[in-house]
């Protein structure tokens, strides 16, 4: 019952953040009113470093295939892999083929693969090897000649930051970073470089890292990927806030009591011990993802959705973020201890392989921030993230103030909580509004109910992966969804004092795996007379009230009905 070809669909719905950035504004065949023709990347080569890594295999290569399958890659698009492997083009193509087969979102089609495969090249070598980079330069120039890629190159640095200086210098030395002169028609080829988090481990290292890249590539050609910003729901924050009249009037201190931004994971550190220890939850998640979510939630309306206006507003709000006066009371951190998670017995952080027994790295972090603007004065923003918690969930919850007066008997509203608006980022993307409703019956009794909007119900069967969207934006050269260096530095300015305080003063508390985090985090909320939203059910603060609607994804319960495959997320029925 799969739709045999979700592949050729046009741009995903609800792309509020972007005004179609034409690849060639002079192309008479493109018309902004012509919404059927998708934004297609212009001719180019993507050069990928770190092709053997997990990210490349599980996300990047499948995303490229999915883009090709949806008809969004230009004819002649080419992919060059660079790694320390003794491979030929065919070996790399085989690796790509396998990762596409296993991880691509859209159905596998041989013709699409053939198209992609014709442009796959591999260059073996060390990052320090001049000859290998000369070889790389020769390869991409040959692609320009053979496949009409027009001298446009995107360099995807899917490698640890310690290699950045070498690779960036090599790109410069081999002439690859130089776009060259204008051609006769006034076209200058482009160079773009894509980097992934971590963008340093504090303000100082973030600046160093930026200097390295900045020395070779101009700021506008550096694309920092925060894959959260590629998610439909995150972009939908902009639509929700700025396309509606319903929410803006209450989106401020007069109505909002506080905001909770949560990213919880049910897994431990897995095989990332080497990376994770010494970094910790705050640097790994709060510095980038959660502060970006905070910025989008709290920022003022940008005058337009172009990159500059959007980033300016985000920067303004990030620069207005203030830390709690007493960091001991306004932050909490923890380390997962052994316990049971999801029905399985799991080891504690200190027992994980590769983690020193006296590690003080936190796997859970919670902070209470305030935003010193007229809109948000006095409204705390609670950010928390942790590993090995009850379930995997990312959400932004605006908790509203209680009604100033309730003309009911106290017993009638006993079960009435605060109203809430919850943007569910993952899984089960959507928006929940929580409000009081009369329980049917002769007595007046008011109880909390949820009103849900779920993406899977109203829009597509599977929305594009964040990486698809972001890679396409890189190739098109459309920057609004990529944080710029100023945002990175502002985020570190917020986090650095907290990290310093933690390093000097506290040891992370132990918390049981499979729970909701350390008691100190609960105590931090309790001191403010508030409580964390429970991590139990999607969008629920209390056990779910009777559903106002059901999901059609649920297997039908009536006999004789055909099996209905799960439609959200990864497809299995290829």
């Amino acid at each position, binding site marked *: 019952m799969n739709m045999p070809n979700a592949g050729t669909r046009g741009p995903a719905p609800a792309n509020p953040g972007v005004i179609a950035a034409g690849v060639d504004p002079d192309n008479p065949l493109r018309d902004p009113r012509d919404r059927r023709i998708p934004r297609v990347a212009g001719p180019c080569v993507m050069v990928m470093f770190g092709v053997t890594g997990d990210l490349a295999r599980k996300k990047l290569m499948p995303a490229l295939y999915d883009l090709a399958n949806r008809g969004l890659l230009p004819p002649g698009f080419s992919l060059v892999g660079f790694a320390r492997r003794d491979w030929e083009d065919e070996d790399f193509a085989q690796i790509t083929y396998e990762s596409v087969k296993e991880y691509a979102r859209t159905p596998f089609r041989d013709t699409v693969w053939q*198209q992609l495969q014709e442009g796959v090249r591999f260059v073996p070598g060390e990052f320090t090897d001049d000859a290998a980079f000369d070889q790389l330069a020769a390869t991409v120039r040959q692609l320009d000649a053979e496949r009409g890629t027009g001298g446009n190159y995107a360099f995807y640095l899917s490698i640890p930051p310690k290699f950045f200086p070498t690779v960036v210098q090599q790109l410069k030395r081999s002439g690859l970073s130089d776009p060259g002169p204008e051609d006769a028609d006034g076209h200058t080829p482009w160079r773009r470089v894509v980097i992934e988090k971590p963008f340093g481990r504090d303000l100082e290292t973030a600046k160093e890292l930026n200097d390295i890249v900045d020395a070779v590539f101009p700021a506008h050609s550096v694309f920092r990927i925060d894959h959260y910003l590629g998610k439909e729901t995150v972009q939908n924050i902009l639509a929700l806030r700025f396309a509606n009249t319903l929410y803006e009037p209450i989106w401020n201190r007069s109505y909002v009591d506080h905001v909770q931004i949560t990213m919880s994971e049910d897994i431990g550190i897995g095989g990332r011990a080497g990376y994770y220890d010494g970094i910790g939850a705050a640097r790994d998640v709060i510095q980038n993802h959660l502060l970006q979510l905070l910025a989008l939630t709290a920022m003022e309306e940008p005058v337009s959705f172009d990159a500059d206006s959007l980033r300016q507003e985000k920067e303004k709000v990030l620069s207005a973020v203030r830390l709690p006066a007493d960091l001991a009371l306004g932050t909490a951190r923890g380390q997962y201890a052994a316990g049971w998670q999801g029905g399985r017995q799991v080891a504690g952080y200190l027992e994980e392989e590769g983690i020193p027994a006296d590690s003080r790295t936190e796997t859970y972090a919670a902070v209470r921030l305030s935003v010193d603007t007229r809109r948000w004065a006095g409204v705390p923003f609670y950010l928390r993230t942790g590993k090995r918690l009850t379930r995997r969930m990312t959400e932004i919850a605006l908790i509203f103030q209680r009604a100033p007066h309730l003309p009911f008997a106290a017993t009638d509203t006993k079960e009435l909580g605060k109203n809430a608006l919850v943007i569910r980022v993952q899984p089960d993307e959507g928006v929940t509004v929580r409000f009081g409703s009369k329980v049917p019956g002769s007595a007046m009794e008011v109880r909390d109910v949820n009103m849900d909007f779920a993406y899977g119900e109203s829009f597509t069967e599977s929305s594009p992966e964040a990486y698809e969207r972001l890679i396409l934006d890189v190739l098109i050269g459309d920057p609004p969804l990529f944080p710029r260096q100023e945002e990175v530095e502002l985020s570190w300015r917020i986090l650095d004092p907290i990290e310093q305080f933690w390093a000097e003063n506290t040891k992370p508390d132990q918390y049981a795996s499979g729970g909701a985090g350390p008691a100190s985090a609960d105590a931090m909320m309790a001191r403010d007379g508030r409580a964390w939203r429970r991590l139990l059910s999607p969008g629920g603060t209390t056990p779910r009230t009777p559903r106002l609607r059901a999901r059609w994804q649920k297997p039908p319960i009536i006999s004789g009905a055909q099996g209905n495959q799960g439609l959200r997320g990864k497809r299995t029925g290829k």
Partner: protein
Amino acid sequence: MTIDLTDTTTGAIDQALTEARRRLGGMTLGMVLTLIIVTDEAAQYDAIRAANQAAREHPCRVLAVITRKPKADSRLDAEIRVGEASPGETIVLRMYGPLGQHADSVVAPLLVPDVPVVTWWPDEAPEIPAKHPLGALAQRRVTDSAASESPREVLAALAAGYQPGDTDFAWTRATPWRSLLAATLDQPHPAVTAGELAAEQDNPTADLIAAWLSLRLEVPASRTVSGGPGITEAEFTTMDGDIRITRYDGRTATLAWPGRTDRRVALHRRDTAELLAEELRRLDPDEVYAETLRHIDVSPPAELAAASEPATDEQFVSEPAAEFGE
């Protein structure tokens, strides 16, 4: 579950739906539109199947309207399918006798409140879709000129009766080709002096693309006849030689550019479900289609009709529109 109601009323259908929804535990309140399919007994199976597949992307209530035995007494039979193959609800409405002339009176009470209505004629298109009683209920009216015996005449009729919100599958089928042609001209290229499109004799999609090219590029675009399947060749004539896209197997196209290696691009012919899903994605009037359709109208279809024998040399050229002429 399937519920059969014979000799029934819309009130009874509505009640049966509510009841079914309650028994299934509150299904399908997330429907985003109502899709009316105007079809007949022979074609309904394929049409409903395609609609159910498209409903995975656009959960909807499907109302299939089938008129039968116009001479019989008026009667309404309904077949309700919920919680089955599709995420929405499907109601097959069979109308006998004079009732068939008043299908809108049956359909109107069954529209999902507050959401858009789309009417789709998978087979013969009405002369003026917007004037059809079931078309008048909808803000988007989808026809398929290629399904008729003489697509070109149908297209001409649709052009004459065009109302904002009309669209035709012949245009939907053009999207992948148009995307590829647009992407081709995204690259720095020599000035295009003419266009050419080769396809089967009866291929309204090719006619539309030729019209679109001549309209947008302000150059003559000719349309030649080939053995198919579908569109086989598109060509830009430039100073430096021809840029040519060929597709002889209906699956993979080859882009030939003077002085460069040929490149292959996947270019599938799509099935009905995909076409329908594309149509349902945007429900506002398609202005580019309207302009193209108007433009196709200025070229006399008769010329090609005269050359209807399988031949490869005859051409008809759609000239640039008068306002774009020299």
